[in-house]
């Protein structure tokens, strides 16, 4: 590289870094955000950028490299000017994403994982992009493109070969449908249906009082919608309590007086988890599109109650296309004095930043998310302490799902008793489900908790003959027809929103393999059982899938699964074996039928192991090969 080129790079990179500092403040915690922007510009992180950032932010170069190496959307080596990431969730596969990959590769003359020699284009696969009901989908230079078919591929290839900049591509390629199929109280809590007015919930909050509003939340029985179902009012209460010691209750509403300029000194923090990484989940995608005002109001209410002046929306990188519209909604709230300094004339300052993720499912786990917000690798923390006592920069932090915050705003607006009338006793309210797979009408359905799987299947036009339904995504449960009377509720079948339907023509092993590979790909690698265990599971499962499994392998699958479940550090590992364990338990016959009818199956490919020796000795005759199961077959 010439010195001149190097200088140009440095100037350009400095601009990116400065722009970020201007927007978000100069802090080493901005590292990930800076890298995300450099990647967007250069399609990798050039060495010059690493040098520059290491100097400017006084971060060791190895830490920067290790960060880049952690996130799927950051690269140390150059990618194409056009980076195509094909969504590779099971639903994309069912909709034929392999044909799309083949088509791209053939027409662009590239291979998966390799940069084309002219540097123009590269193609890879990526985990679920949250477009399951409008797949097969891809991200092109970070922007979501749904409904891929031969026609659209041809259009894309044409523009890539012509070198058309992405912002000049026709808008229809990036058109994401909302696909709302069933509304209830939450989706109807909108301006269009006359149920929501910007600022009403916040005004009610201050009119009624902070303590009384928190009481409404307690009365409502609202539980977190991100999966675990923790009582929201209790979380907010703990967070508030952990700030003041002793007579916490009287102090509720102690208003934060830190000026926005010195936000790193802020007392408490509100974080919205918009990482939505569980394959088959896309309901937050809708809420961030149509209910962003309600979300921001919910976060602001939380801030007032716990005494926070700083908030974050952690937006998964796959939803980058929503970044600008979210910023506009934030601006709109600032203009209306619903966000910023002295909100609604109260002595209350609160503002929100959007942080982009960079392709890591683990960053949906709340403590990994906080690490990522701080600009680190997304490694889950040891607990205790929990985020409510020591979260972002060790300050008490509330992390809630998108849907939870919107429910909270609605409850403050409409009252806790009213809310509790919906759903079941232990699961009040409604749940948004993202339904995909084998049905005539995939999309987003809102139901009161307590609805049975069968009712849902009838409603969305599920195929008559089903293999089963994956409720709650890969980390959830696979159920078959004898369980279709079960209910969606925290006390029965919990779901963060993923609901994937498989008809009887689907291969169970394709499904379980996709899920198992997902977990080993997304394991952060921190703890031994998950890091090594998910890889062992993937390899063993592949062996069975390929038809080389023996009875002993099933025993081993179950044992490894249980080890990962019982000894892993966080929820990812603790649920990573669920696809195998829940299907082994429910469909043992399918597994039996998949096995080789032999007493012994080697743990590895005997003939393959001789490959090196054959090459070294230049032999390829029959005697240089070993039959795997000669005598036994």
């Amino acid at each position, binding site marked *: 590289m010439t010195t001149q080129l190097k200088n140009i790079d440095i100037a350009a990179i400095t601009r990116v870094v400065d722009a970020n500092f201007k927007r978000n403040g100069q802090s080493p915690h901005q590292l990930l955000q800076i890298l995300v922007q450099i990647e967007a510009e250069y399609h990798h992180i050039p060495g010059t950028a690493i040098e520059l950032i290491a100097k400017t932010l006084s971060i060791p170069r190895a830490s920067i490299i*290790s960060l880049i190496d952690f996130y799927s959307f950051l690269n140390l080596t150059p990618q194409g000017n056009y980076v195509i990431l094909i969504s590779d969730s099971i639903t994309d596969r069912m909709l034929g994403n392999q044909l799309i990959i083949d088509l791209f590769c053939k027409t662009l003359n590239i291979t998966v994982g390799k940069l084309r020699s002219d540097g123009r284009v590269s193609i890879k696969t990526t985990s679920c992009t949250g477009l399951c009901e409008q797949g097969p989908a891809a991200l092109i230079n970070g922007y979501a493109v749904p409904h891929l078919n031969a026609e659209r591929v041809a259009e894309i290839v044409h523009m890539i070969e012509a070198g058309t900049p992405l912002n000049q591509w026709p808008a229809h390629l990036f058109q994401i449908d909302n696909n709302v199929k069933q509304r209830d109280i939450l989706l109807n809590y909108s301006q269009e249906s006359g149920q929501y007015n910007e600022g009403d919930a916040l005004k009610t909050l201050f009119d009624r009082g902070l303590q009384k509003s928190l009481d409404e939340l307690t009365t409502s029985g609202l539980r977190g919608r991100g999966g675990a179902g923790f009582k929201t009012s209790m979380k907010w209460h703990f967070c508030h309590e952990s700030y003041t010691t002793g007579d916490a209750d009287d102090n509720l509403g102690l208003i934060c007086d830190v000026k926005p300029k010195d936000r790193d000194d802020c007392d408490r923090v509100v974080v919205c988890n918009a990482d939505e990484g569980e394959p088959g989940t896309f309901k937050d995608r809708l809420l961030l599109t149509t209910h962003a005002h309600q979300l921001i109001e919910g976060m602001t209410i939380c801030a007032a109650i716990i005494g926070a002046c700083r908030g974050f929306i952690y937006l998964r990188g796959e939803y980058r296309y929503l970044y600008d519209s979210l910023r506009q909604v934030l601006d709109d709230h600032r203009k209306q004095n619903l966000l910023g300094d002295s909100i609604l004339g109260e002595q209350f300052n609160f503002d929100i930043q959007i942080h982009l993720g960079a392709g890591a499912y683990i960053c949906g786990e709340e403590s990994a998310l906080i690490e990522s917000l701080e600009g680190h*690798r997304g490694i889950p923390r040891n607990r205790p302490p929990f985020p409510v006592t020591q979260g972002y920069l060790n300050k008490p932090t509330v992390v809630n799902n998108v849907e939870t915050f919107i429910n909270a705003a609605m409850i403050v607006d409409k009252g806790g008793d009213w809310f509790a009338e919906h759903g079941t006793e232990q699961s009040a309210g409604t749940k948004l489900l993202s339904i995909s797979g084998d049905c005539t009408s995939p999309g987003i359905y809102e139901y009161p908790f307590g609805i049975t799987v069968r009712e849902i299947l009838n409603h969305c036009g599920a195929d008559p003959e089903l293999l089963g339904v994956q409720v709650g995504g890969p980390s959830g449960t696979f159920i078959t027809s004898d369980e279709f009377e079960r209910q969606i509720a925290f006390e029965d079948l919990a779901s963060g929103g993923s609901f994937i339907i498989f008809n009887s023509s689907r291969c169970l092993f394709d499904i379980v393999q996709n899920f198992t590979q997902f977990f080993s790909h997304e394991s952060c690698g921190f*703890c031994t059982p998950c890091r090594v265990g998910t890889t062992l599971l993937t*390899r063993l499962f592949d062996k069975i899938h390929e038809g080389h499994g023996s009875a002993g392998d099933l025993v081993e699958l179950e044992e490894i699964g249980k080890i990962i479940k019982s000894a892993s*550090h966080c929820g990812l590992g603790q649920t990573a074996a669920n696809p195998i364990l829940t299907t082994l338990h429910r469909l043992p016959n399918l597994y039996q039928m998949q096995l080789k009818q032999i007493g012994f199956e080697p743990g590895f490919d005997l003939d393959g192991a001789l490959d090196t020796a054959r090459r070294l000795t230049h032999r390829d005759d029959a005697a240089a090969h070993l039959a795997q199961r000669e005598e036994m077959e």
Partner: protein
Amino acid sequence: MTESQFTIDGVIVAFTEGQTIMEAASAANIYIPRLCHHPDFKPHGSCKLCTVNVNGRNCSACTFPAAFGQQVLNQTTELNNLRRRIIQMLFVEGNHLCPACEKSGNCKLQATAYQLQMVDSHFPHFYRDSRVDSSHPDIMLDRNRCIFCTLCVRASRDIDGKDLFAISGRGINKHLVINSASGELHDSGMTITDRAADICPTGALLIKRQGFSIPIGKRIYDNHEICEDCDE
């Protein structure tokens, strides 16, 4: 039992506020297997060899706080079987050819494996492709033997003040990287007097030309099982 006591395998153990189960156990001379823990450093909680059962739930002893009345299980068949599987995972993940390794006999990975009565590797080997760094005149890094305990990372950052190491990669692609212009040890500024140079529990980070100063057979774990007194 008083307010500052709990039990490990039924034995009453005292603790002070803020102590982890591991620290309280150590003070009571009760051994809990461990690889990523060292009393001089902030606990990490990643190897999971120290998995104990606390009131029915598995926890990492090195990070979990001791609390009044906790019933901790440590030396049970079930837990030791689990730990044996976990250490076998570490053995198949890396390339641990103990008979050919300078550290043999002083290696905590090897000693813990003996202690857990590991007699085979059980799982298929990964044959990981790891880079060896022998660029430094006095120190050698063989990543084949790295178990990611991060003790070198912590020692270099927290004691030597040099911040020479970091863990890079995700999942099974995890690996140790060096903070130097070349990415190798020779221009890292590491010296044999660094705490990081002699903290490695395995044979991954070794000081050169010292490997056989103590002959095989006379090394720490050649003569006794790994135990509480080993973390001098």
